[in-house]
């Protein structure tokens, strides 16, 4: 019996879709059977991030309306065998699906897959309600910005109101240098406000932009620091205890270099 994990944030642009793509790919890398569901009907992105947009024939709305079988709509990933995508419809809107249909769909997918990751749209309206309906667990994505944290707090409240206890926090796009200077919110400050368990911290990484544009999740790139962070998060989802990644590796190297040249490390 599989598990349904919803990835949500409230605020837009904090990295829900990137996180979904990376965690999904990471789980598939470890040999799990995974399906990613894009519930952002009308503004779908997950297919683009996965590089699968040209394969879409049927979508989530076709499935819930019964115009095709689930198997027909699932798109097999081009790199990993156990990874599938159920894309959202682009020419419809959020009201095309209701929470009951999502619960039914998730239950059917649970039979066959180990993990079902639901990519939630921004906002707290219909699309959000659909996305969380069938979920067993939730991951709340936020960035170290006051606005994103505020929205995450609201989302955590709504999740708890919908019987989704113990959501996990993922802090995305952290810039260690800025945190050190005090220009960016500290991870501890964020946990202080939100008071939920941390599942991982993902550094801000240029490689994410590149990988998103290429349609290849960063988790497959061994050199990417963000990819490493996602790999650790994947292992934590599977129940392993993994220490937090040391995000200062890059800067550490710079300091070492500077020391090498006899400069004063700042």
């Amino acid at each position: 019996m599989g598990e349904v994990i919803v990835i949500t944030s409230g605020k837009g642009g904090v990295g829900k879709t990137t996180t979904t793509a990376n965690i999904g790919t990471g789980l598939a890398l470890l040999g799990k059977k995974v399906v990613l569901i894009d519930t952002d009907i009308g503004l779908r992105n997950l297919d683009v991030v996965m590089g699968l947009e040209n394969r879409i024939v049927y979508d989530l709305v076709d499935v819930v309306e019964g115009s095709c079988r689930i198997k027909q709509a699932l798109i097999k990933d081009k790199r990993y065998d156990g990874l599938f995508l159920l894309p959202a419809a682009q020419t419809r809107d959020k009201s095309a699906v209701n929470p009951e249909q999502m619960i039914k769909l998730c239950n059917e997918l649970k039979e066959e897959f180990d993990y079902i990751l639901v990519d939630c749209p921004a906002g707290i309206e219909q699309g959000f309600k659909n996305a969380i309906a069938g979920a067993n667990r939730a991951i709340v994505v936020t960035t170290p910005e006051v606005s994103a944290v505020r929205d995450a707090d609201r989302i955590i409240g709504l999740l708890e109101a919908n019987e989704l206890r113990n959501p996990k926090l993922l802090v995305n796009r952290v810039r260690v240098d800025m945190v050190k200077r005090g220009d960016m919110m500290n991870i501890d400050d964020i946990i202080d406000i939100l008071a939920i368990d941390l599942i991982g911290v993902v550094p801000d990484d240029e490689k994410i932009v590149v990988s998103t544009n290429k349609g290849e999740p960063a988790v497959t790139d061994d050199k990417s620091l963000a990819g490493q962070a996602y790999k650790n998060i994947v292992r934590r989802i599977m129940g392993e205890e993994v220490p937090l990644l040391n995000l200062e590796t890059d800067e550490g190297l710079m300091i070492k270099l500077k020391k090498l040249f006899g400069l004063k490390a700042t």
Partner: protein
Amino acid sequence: MEENIVTFKGSVNGLIVIMKEDEPFEAVMEQMERKIASAGKFFKGASLSVKYRGRKLSEKEAAKIHDLLVQKSGAEIKEFSEDTETSTKPVVNQSEVQQHRFEMKNYFFKGIDEGRTKFYKGTLRSGQLVSFDGNLVVIGDVNPGAEVVATGNVAVMGSLRGIVHAGADGNKDAMVVAFNLQPMQLRIADVITRSPDEKESRNPMVPELAYVKGDMVYIERFLPQR
């Protein structure tokens, strides 16, 4: 005397009585009696289930009207209850969606040489869908994420980067032409092809034509360049 306190309306399931809310109950009764009388033998012998709308009735009032209907109309009243069904007016969005998809049919649209044609002027952006039962000409671009569906040919006077479906109800002779043919996905009748995964740098803005021959999609330049 107000004329339309009570309106009778036929429906698929029987008779619907619409009563005005702000009139006294006596007036409703009185007018209903007259209406039934004027209908004469219309209801006689019929077997009706009657629903009412527009006015909440107490049990007593409902019973009174039920009695009146039984006595005066001469019809067999199977039931008399409030109409709980909400207005059956189709939601605009849904009827729109209905037209979007065409079923594969044995009798498909054959007017691709000469037949009804729609011209759409403007750029189609992601999430937009233009569909037509006939040939379709887009004067503008079709961006990624947009969809163009026609039962006949599709011509795009611009760049075609979205999803295109020609001969959507089954005509394999349908073709797709565009000034710049780079569709995410191209479908003709039941044949589906997709763009290659590697970004190939093709010469942009070369008018091309796509057609189906033996379940394969062929793409060729259509400008005479010899």
